[in-house]
């Protein structure tokens, strides 16, 4: 890299690893775009990609905390399946008898109970790991078998369908989006909020006499953030709903529409959920004591303990959080399919771990970011759906994804060694 370019990047204060990941993502996208004769980078495909990424990415944000504290969670895929079964049975067979068929509160109660169950199961695993000191690998390997078996047992292996119509909106699809207007509103609000946060942070730093970025660098970053958020809303708003589906939706919602009515998707609800989760998890990791203790414990467990951090309770909290996020991911995955089958979430634990690791989370502990895990999930999903579009056979897809995982970690190791980080 030339000197002025490096100076430019240093002033922006952007992480080299982040740039590397974005570079890899752009490379993969362009490669598939050419290989598919321009079908990859279209609003339609990017919309689908964003929806397909959501479930794994939500879990990957939690896996960052698990791996940062030198643990692992192999049970998330099975737990996702079990929670999906519980929530499916609840909304199909139990709640209609209590509150009435098609009642508006069914999806809320379902999601609430699902998340509570996820948190409880996660906390229990965390308790075994933290207080009974059984290694996380073993506890969650056991959980992997237990939950998959238990999911079968909930309905004796039968697929649960159809799910509640409102619940299904949480999975995306033509109806499960914000629509055009709200997408614009969300994009603009997000852009304004990001700029406000950057300005406030700059002011507090100045007040404490800490050096800040040059004003042009801050301005460039703000421009980038605004372009990205508003651009994403614009992109999602360019994906047209097929005319017949649009007419059907308009009719179902009781809209009086002209003959040549057109409708666009907008940002999918699962993506909104993912963005909310990612923002909250970033705040938790950087601005709360809990987050600080997660990283301190990962960096030096003994030092954390001697600093008065209750590392056992911390382990319980981390796994409880992982369980809660798995429940949210389960809502997205089951709602997207509209049904809960026995195989829901199969192999997801490996996708989630791979996403976190590709995103720069070190298995040796102490390092990892939320945005990295989300980009990692996006890279994994891009590879998978890109290869499917090109027509690569499913077994060969696994071969490629497996090799990319190892390669990504090797590059990360070389990078860490070079920078001494």
């Amino acid at each position, binding site marked *: 890299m030339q000197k002025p370019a490096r100076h430019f990047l240093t002033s922006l204060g952007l992480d080299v690893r982040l740039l590397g990941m974005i570079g890899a993502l752009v490379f993969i996208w362009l490669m598939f775009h050419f290989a598919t004769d321009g079908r990859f980078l279209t609003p339609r495909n990017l919309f689908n990609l964003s929806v397909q990424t959501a479930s794994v990415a939500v879990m990957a944000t939690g896996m960052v905390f698990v791996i940062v504290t030198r643990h692992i969670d192999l049970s998330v895929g099975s737990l996702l399946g079990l929670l999906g079964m519980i929530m499916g049975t609840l909304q199909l067979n139990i709640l209609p008898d209590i509150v009435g068929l098609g009642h508006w509160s069914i999806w809320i109660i379902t999601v609430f109970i699902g998340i509570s169950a996820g948190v409880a199961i996660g906390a229990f695993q965390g308790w075994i790991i933290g207080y009974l000191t059984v290694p996380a690998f073993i506890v969650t390997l056991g959980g992997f078998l237990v939950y998959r078996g238990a999911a079968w047992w909930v309905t004796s292996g039968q697929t649960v369908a159809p799910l509640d119509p409102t619940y299904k909106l949480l999975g995306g699809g033509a109806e499960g989006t914000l629509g055009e207007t709200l997408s614009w509103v969300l994009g603009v609000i997000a852009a304004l909020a990001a700029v406000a946060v950057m300005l406030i942070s700059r002011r507090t730093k100045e007040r404490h006499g800490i050096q800040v970025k040059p004003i042009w660098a801050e301005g460039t970053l703000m421009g980038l953030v605004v372009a990205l958020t508003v651009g994403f809303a614009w992109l999602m708003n360019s994906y047209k709903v097929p005319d017949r589906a649009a007419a059907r939706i308009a009719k179902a919602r009781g809209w009086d529409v002209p003959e040549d009515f057109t409708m666009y998707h907008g940002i999918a609800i699962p993506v909104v959920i993912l963005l909310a989760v990612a923002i909250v998890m970033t705040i938790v990791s950087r*601005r709360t004591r809990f987050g600080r203790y997660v990283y301190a414990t990962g960096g030096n467990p003994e030092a954390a303990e*001697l600093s008065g951090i209750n590392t056992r309770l911390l382990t319980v909290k981390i796994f409880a959080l992982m369980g809660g996020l798995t429940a949210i991911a389960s809502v997205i995955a089951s709602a997207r399919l509209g049904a809960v089958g026995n195989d829901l979430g199969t192999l997801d634990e490996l996708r989630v771990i791979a996403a976190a690791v590709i995103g720069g989370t070190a298995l040796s502990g102490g390092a990892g970011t939320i945005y990295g895990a989300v980009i990692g999930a996006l890279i994994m999903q891009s590879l998978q759906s890109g290869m499917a579009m090109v027509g690569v056979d499913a077994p060969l897809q696994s071969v490629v994804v497996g090799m990319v995982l190892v390669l990504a970690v090797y590059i990360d190791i070389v990078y860490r060694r070079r920078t001494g980080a």
Partner: protein
Amino acid sequence: MNAQTPLVDMRDIHISFGGIKAVDHVSVDLYPGEVVGLLGHNGAGKSTLIKILSGAYAADGGEIYVNGQKADINNPRDARKYNIETIYQTLALADNLDAASNLFLGRELVTAAGFVDDDAMEAECRKIMGRLNPNFQKFNDPVSALSGGQRQSVAIARAVYFNAKILIMDEPTAALGPHETQMVSELIQQLKSEGIGIFLISHDIHDVMELCDRASVMKNGQLVGTVDVKDVTDDDLLSMIILGKKPEGVTVS
């Protein structure tokens, strides 16, 4: 020397690990403004004894009094409540975090909304480091990027910042060069004059002769004896450490 109440009085402390008596019914005390050296070979039990005071280990038996009141110390959080601060031999720093995060680890400054206030912590960190080690500049790097002396000054800053009344220093100069060792000596003198009591664990007889008022010598988990440093010679201390022999003609408590 004292009619006052001791700052710390550890009585009849004992602890075993798998049948080995690491600390075998040992009693030591510490008065305000005093430096007590803890001496002994590796494995004599001095670090273990001190980890009981700092809450890292729970004793099998014995009692700890702080300012004459019986103290209940079961974990490091309890010890901090009694204003007992420790500089560990390993420094106990989270290498992946920066100096300010380590300084405030477990006691973060928070904003009104309850979020960690990194800017305020960095500002405070700059203040105390300016006093302890004016050359220190690497505030935004993880402490893994710091030199041995810089890391040591972060660990010392952590103990001093929170108004310690009782300070435990486990081999504070083992990893330091002559200049930094001198800095630590000056710091000890200054803290002493502020009325802080210090337990100083050291291998170095010269350090002990220079910095300590009294020395407690341990061997094989037992207390050989406690002497006033001004009453004894280097050789007396050495024979206590090596042979477990009490010097003649000296009051040994």
